[in-house]
């Protein structure tokens, strides 16, 4: 218990300091002493002490004043006031000001022991509580965000930094990079997590439909509006609204949106009553909004309103370290959903995945793995289970020689080493093809 707990004794009497020092050092505490409040405060500025035992009556600054200043320096320190019988009233005042406890000098050894033990338990519990809280915050609902590359860690760090505030966020990234997952992670780790996160895919809705979706409508507002309907802004009250593909909204909607973001007030389509909603906005786009502002296709004022924090989700090709982890994650996910045993992925297939460009990003990888599990042998994902087996040129930072070798071999294998047919496909004459075979040392034995 005493291990790692630091204790500072502040008393102007040397004998008291020495006695307490000896007493606590035998208990294994990390003990330091100060003979006045000034020295003690200097020491506390340099190092955090868990428990501070301070005499109430000291020349210069007294224990009560010192306690107030300690709380400004380190609010988590436990301050125990030592007092003579005559100054109990002052000690009670210290308790009202937030001191942990007080002891009347001289103390019963057992009382002192109990007091410090309780204070130590309090510190340990506080630390455990804090650790658990942090753990919960850092883990909550980000289990779908897979990756240990520097780029992914940077994005998660940004999520953690921004989650606690209510600032608007724009998540920029190519299609399929998991922008909505990032938005969910921000919401789940924010103080708004107990309220809904409402998603609107702006790109999928026409202008009028989007207006009705966002603001809601009153019965009879338009043909088919048979009932009153709450809009997404209303539904997101207390929580977060996620506007995906924000770059696709019309100029008219941009104006409407800006007005709502500024006032947090709106009227349902066909209604008159003003509705107030407290929501946080997170937007996502795969386009360069800044360029759109420069081109005049996106309103500058709305852009600055939304772009308080910008999180850039890098494409998968810029974080190849994540591919293996993601592949394993999707294998587990789909094998479990298909009630199959978890299968592995062979080395050639793994290598090929790591070389591939993934223009469709994580979504493409996910689909690829799902397909491979369906078409595969149920034991292992092989290179030929992937739609990349024939795609040689993507993202191979290899020499021209190596690429030529691979491609020639590929064509030969595909045509069962029929030289004439292969030469025709390669648009070279037979002699040239023979020379290439010789040059690269190819033979039918190279066939996979």
């Amino acid at each position, binding site marked *: 218990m005493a291990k790692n707990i630091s204790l500072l004794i502040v008393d102007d009497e040397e004998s008291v300091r020495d006695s307490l020092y000896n007493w606590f050092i035998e208990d294994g505490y990390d003990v330091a002493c100060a003979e006045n409040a000034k020295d003690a405060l200097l020491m506390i500025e340099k190092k955090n002490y868990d428990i501070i035992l301070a005499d109430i009556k000291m020349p210069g600054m007294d224990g009560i004043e010192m306690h107030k200043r300690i709380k400004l320096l380190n609010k988590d320190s436990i301050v125990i006031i030592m007092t003579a019988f005559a100054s109990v009233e002052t000690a009670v005042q210290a308790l009202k000001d937030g001191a942990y406890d007080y002891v009347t*000098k001289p103390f*019963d050894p057992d009382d002192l022991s109990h007091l410090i033990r309780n204070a130590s338990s309090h510190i340990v519990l506080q630390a455990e509580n804090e650790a658990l809280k942090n753990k919960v915050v850092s883990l909550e609902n980000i289990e779908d965000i897979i990756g240990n590359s520097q780029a992914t860690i940077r994005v998660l760090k940004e999520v953690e930094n921004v989650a606690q505030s209510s600032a608007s966020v724009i998540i920029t990234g190519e299609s399929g990079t998991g922008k909505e997952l990032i938005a969910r992670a921000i919401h789940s780790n924010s103080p708004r997590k107990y309220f809904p996160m409402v998603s609107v895919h702006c790109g999928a809705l026409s202008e009028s439909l989007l207006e009705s979706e966002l603001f809601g409508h009153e019965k009879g507002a338009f043909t088919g509006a048979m009932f009153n309907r709450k809009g997404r802004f209303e539904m997101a009250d207390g929580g977060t609204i996620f506007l995906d593909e924000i770059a696709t909204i019309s100029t008219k909607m941009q104006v409407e949106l800006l007005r709502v973001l500024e006032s947090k007030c709106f009227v349902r389509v066909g209604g008159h009553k003003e509705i107030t909603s407290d929501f946080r906005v997170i937007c996502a786009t795969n386009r360069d909004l800044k360029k759109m502002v420069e081109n005049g296709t996106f309103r500058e004022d709305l852009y600055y309103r939304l772009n308080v924090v910008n999180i850039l989700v890098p494409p998968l090709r810029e974080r190849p370290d994540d591919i293996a982890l993601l592949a394993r994650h999707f294998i587990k996910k789909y094998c479990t959903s298909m009630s199959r045993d978890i299968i592995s992925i062979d080395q050639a297939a793994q290598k090929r995945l790591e070389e591939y460009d993934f223009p469709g990003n994580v979504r493409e990888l996910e689909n690829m793995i799902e397909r491979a599990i369906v078409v595969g042998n149920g034991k292992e994902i092989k290179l030929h289970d992937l739609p990349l087996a024939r795609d040689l040129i993507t993202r191979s930072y290899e020499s021209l020689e190596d690429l030529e070798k691979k491609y020639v071999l590929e064509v030969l294998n595909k045509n069962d080493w029929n030289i004439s047919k292969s030469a025709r496909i390669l648009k070279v004459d037979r002699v040239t093809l023979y020379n290439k075979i010789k040059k690269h040392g190819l033979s039918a034995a190279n066939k996979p």
Partner: protein
Amino acid sequence: MATQKIVLRYNGHFEQSCLDKIVADIQREYKIPVELIECHSDISIFFDPARRQYDANKLLEFIDSNTGPYALKTIAIFRVDLYIPILTYIFGQAAYKGKSGIASVYRLKNEQYGLKPDEKLLHERLRKVVVHELGHTFGLIHCPNPECVMRSSTYVEDIDQKKLMLCRKCKNELALS
């Protein structure tokens, strides 16, 4: 060159059988020869009339400044009521990683707590306090093991709960020191 010893000094009357047992306890736990010395030091100068107790800090300083050249450690036992300024009483006191320690039977007596005198129990308590305080001089801190003699004891029944020996962990630490 003479062998280094642990010196056990006693002030006041102590039964020889009790002293012999303390010597045996120290030798068993610390594997160092013990020399028993009777003292007649005037300790009245350490008496605080306001508290009607003896200042253990000053007494310890006095013992520390009167250790012999061959005394690796010195432990002195008394029959008086000991205090340190901050505490109402203490059973014993030692200089952590130092050369000296003190202990007293005064607060170990059953009579102090309204119970029947029990000499055997009193001796056993004293033996435990002596071994405990010597442990501090060797750098041992309070042990969480409820049976270890190095467990902290703030009231007398606490002492009765522990055994008259160092636990394995404390023995290992002692060997390393």
